[in-house]
């Protein structure tokens, strides 16, 4: 694979990949190790496909598989009974899932650029799953204000995603 392409993929996908691995491993240090190992392996094994989505699929699949492998090995040591639902079918990552992680990554980045109160309300509502009433009580604001923040947040997201997508297309 081309060194420039490799770096570009790393820059764009390192964060979503690490967070995906984190959801399986529950440990960021381990998650980052896995992702870094996979990138190094992809380089040395000269893995690359003409179809870019195939390359990404391969990357995400490897990270996922390795993460599960680590869980399995660790739980073997601890003699924990495993939920075997993922074992027999190959967990290969479809393009939808890659797009989901990319999207989540974008949303996360955009939230951090919102005004603090809006970001806070949106996080409590849409990430932490609190009800509007609970948020109003917790933050000592009116229900209407909570709704207004959430609406504003979605508006900002829509605008940002629009611009982002079109910028991506133009490169």
């Amino acid at each position, binding site marked *: 694979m*081309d*060194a420039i392409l490799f770096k570009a993929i790393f820059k764009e996908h390192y964060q979503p990949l690490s967070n995906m691995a984190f959801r399986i491993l529950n440990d960021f240090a381990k998650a980052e190790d896995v992702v870094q190992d996979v990138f190094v392996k992809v380089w040395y094994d000269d893995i690359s496909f003409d179809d870019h989505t195939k390359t990404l699929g391969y990357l995400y699949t490897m990270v996922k598989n390795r993460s599960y492998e680590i869980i399995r090995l660790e739980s073997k040591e601890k003699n924990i009974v495993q939920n075997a639902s993922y074992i*027999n079918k190959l967990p290969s990552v479809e393009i939808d899932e890659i797009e989901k992680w990319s999207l989540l990554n974008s949303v996360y980045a955009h939230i951090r650029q919102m005004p603090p109160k809006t970001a806070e309300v949106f996080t409590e509502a849409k990430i932490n799953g609190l009800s509007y009433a609970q948020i109003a009580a917790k933050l000592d604001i009116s229900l209407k204000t909570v709704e207004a923040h959430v609406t504003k947040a979605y508006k900002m997201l829509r605008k940002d995603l629009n611009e982002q997508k079109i910028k991506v297309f133009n490169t």
Partner: protein
Amino acid sequence: MTLNNKIKNSLLTAHQNEELEAIEKWKKQLHENADELVAHLESSKITEQLRGYQTVDSAAAWDKVSSRIPELSVPDSAKVLRPKFINVIWKIAAVMILVVGAYIGFKQLDTTSTVFESQLVEVITMNDGSNITLDEGTKLVQLADRAYNLEGRAYFRVAKDPKHPFTVKTLHGQLTVLGTEFNIWTTDQSTHVAVTEGTVRFVWLDKEYILTRGDVLVSNSKGANITHIDKMGYDSWKDKSLKFKDDNLHFVLQNIAVFYKVDLVFSDESEFDSCKINSIFREETIDQVLKELNVLAGLDYDFDGQTITAKSFNCN
């Protein structure tokens, strides 16, 4: 300009217009898609998967990764490319070329040209976003931003840029495109071009040919000929290569399943195994690969064309 050429030129412009219209349409769809995306976010609980999401230090991570890969520490401007980067040697090569006399059609190359030579199937992405897959033993010389010489076989996916035509020169003709996909391969006696998408203008011996999807052109010292094929099987070579080094069987099978787009099932809850597979599979069908694994790792399997069922194996 003859009438024929005028017509052909206006056809090309019509295609250009079609392409530009298609781009505008797609832009509009993306616009609508972003709205759909947010609507999807609003109505679903996807954002809850952001719980625990963290920013990681990608820059620090990149430092760690590039410290494990020496080639990455070279600055981008040096254009290091695996497996080979030849630039200084070009001066000597230029002299040899004149002596051999086989490259009469080529421009005199200066020392700032970049030469790509592939030992394996290799994909290169250029500055303009174009994607070129080189077959083994192919030599691609970059003359300028969207201008190349080719000896060997390559598959081009050219980034659309109506303002800057993309050209490829071969011993038997030169082609120009605006943005499209095509296969070229050259021998000492001929050049073959097969167009997968878009429009290609090919010039040879003062004649101009316009090729579109499904057209195949063959040119030699006497002239050029166009035929048409229905199935674009010309580019199947570029994908068929898998390399394994000390990898266990589970890993190998998973890769094969992804590569050949089939399903994979392990019929027992076998653990990750201690096999060590060292193989390169090139230009092989999946049946051939599975048979080899049967030999290498005693793999007992079923394959019905869509699903591999791995039953047992035996590595010692």
